[in-house]
């Protein structure tokens, strides 16, 4: 280590690094790998036994496990799909409007639209549950006011709507994040570039599509991967709104809630740390694949512009 012009060992580097590296290694990296390791074991009569990939065979092959797993995985992809389809376009639209240089009250809109993002899932889940509740009747009476009362259904209670409804609630909560990141990216586009476009007759909406959008593509890439990672370890909203059983009839079960029920146990079901680790490993693999696709497939192809 002592390389700084052959001086004595630089203890201060160790002192500066040690606390962060120790806490990070002990509480994050070590448990992460330990969880991957635990997925290879099982417990019979209080003795931990190495079983190789048996747990994975059970998870993917045994119908008692695999049905729930594929259900949770499919639901998770749907959850992600809704976010990509609704959250990010709305976020980009709001950011594009907000970044207009002569817009009044931009600060107020920005602050207000970001408020749901700072609330906890518990608040968001319950608040929407109450608002959508047929007992309270806020949603039906609002729909009645615009003549659409017939559209009302107890969305959170119906198998076919519940997951989409929850995904839209999550979109409502998090739209502030893509909005802010895209807003920042749009602000960093130099004025000269837009002026050059103006001289060529590219203004208004076509300036957005032809000049700004290509320049903010890297930010859209980052938002997509953040959304992916966030959605594939989501748990709180579903738990707060629908409980650990992710009802109705597991229609809103995603990997996070499935992991929670499996490893922690719920009601009559006993917790199983080894199957829990197996699910966590599967989640780790999915997130890793997503991150790799982003890093090697998307990010390297997007040209980065340095201003």
């Amino acid at each position, binding site marked *: 280590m002592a390389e700084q012009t052959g001086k004595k060992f630089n203890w201060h*580097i160790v002192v500066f690094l040690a606390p962060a590296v120790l*806490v990070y290694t002990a509480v994050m990296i070590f448990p992460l790998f330990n969880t991957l390791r635990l997925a290879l074991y099982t417990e019979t009569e209080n003795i931990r036994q190495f079983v190789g990939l048996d747990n994975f065979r059970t998870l993917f092959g045994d119908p008692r496990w695999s049905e729930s797993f594929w259900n949770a995985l499919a639901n998770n992809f749907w959850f992600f799909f809704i976010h990509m389809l609704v959250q990010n376009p709305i976020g980009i639209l709001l950011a594009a409007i907000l970044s207009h240089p002569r817009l009044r009250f931009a600060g107020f809109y920005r602050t207000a639209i970001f408020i749901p993002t700072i*609330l*906890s899932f518990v608040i968001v889940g319950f608040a*929407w549950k109450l608002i959508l509740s047929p007992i309270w009747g806020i949603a039906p009476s609002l729909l009645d006011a615009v003549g659409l009362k017939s559209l009302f259904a107890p969305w959170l209670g119906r198998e076919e709507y519940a997951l989409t409804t929850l995904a839209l609630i999550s979109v409502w909560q998090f739209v502030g994040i893509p909005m802010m990141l895209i807003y920042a990216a749009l602000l960093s586009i130099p004025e000269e570039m837009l002026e050059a476009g103006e001289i060529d007759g590219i203004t208004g909406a076509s300036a957005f599509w032809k000049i700004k959008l290509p320049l903010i593509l890297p930010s859209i890439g980052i938002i997509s991967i953040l959304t992916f990672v966030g959605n594939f370890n989501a748990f709180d909203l579903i738990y707060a709104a629908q409980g650990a059983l992710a009802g109705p009839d597991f229609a809103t079960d995603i990997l996070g809630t499935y992991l929670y029920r499996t490893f922690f146990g719920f009601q009559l079901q006993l917790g199983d740390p080894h199957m829990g680790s197996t699910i966590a490993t599967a989640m780790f693999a999915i997130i890793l694949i997503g991150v790799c696709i982003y890093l090697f497939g998307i990010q390297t192809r997007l040209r980065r512009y340095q201003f």
Partner: protein
Amino acid sequence: MSTATARSNLGNTIAAHAILITWTVIALFPVFVILINSLKTRKAIFREPLALPNAESFSLVGYQTVAKQGDFFLYFQNSMIVTVVSLTFILLFGAMAAFALSEYRFRGNSLMGLYLALGIMIPIRIGTVAILEMMVATGLVNTLTALILVYTAQGLPLAVFILSEFMRQVSEDLKNAGRIDGLSEYAIFFRLVLPLVRPAMATVAVFNMIPIWNDLWFPLILAPGEETKTLTLGSQVFIGQFVTDWNAVLSALSLAILPALVLYLIFSRQLIRGITSGAVK
């Protein structure tokens, strides 16, 4: 020509405001409904959910139930301790590591940077099974220490990443002048560098504050005991128990919303500046 452009500009401005107002209403409506109804009688909540509380419908019965049944002050205190202590560790340890990485050349520097950056993309929740096992083995289950350790580890990767970017910009001359004056490396870090990266520290603090304060997963798994419940978990459990008592549920929700809202309004400028300054690009 010019009047046509002016007209279309006006049209665009109106459309822009219409879209922004619509979304602002959508964003604030649920919060507004919860807050106003928490101040009404049960009858008024159901009869006119969208009306503001007036002399006749005003009632604090929900808040009274919350005060009697729930230990919200304790929960609030727990959340406060966990958030403040975790943030302190994240900032102190993160800044120290960032300083080591940005200031000194040593073998394994970039490898260490990469190692610490891994945690930006990999969520710490994946390791929950082993974290719980470790906390059980060390007797830290149902202590705030367990939560503080987890949140510190969770916050460090991004903190190191952001802070080292900023520390690279601190003038080399300033540090060398300090060295010539005989300051130790520690004094250079604490007295010269830290004050200069204060804005970046604030950004890191605000970024970490919200997820720590709002987390439900780790309090639920590591510290579900009555003594260690955080505000998020406490309100979740309370609401679950009082599901049919609408006054109590609405009041509990309002009590959970208010601290977050106040904190946000205090720090929103910092947060927005942090995001838009490109700290997370």
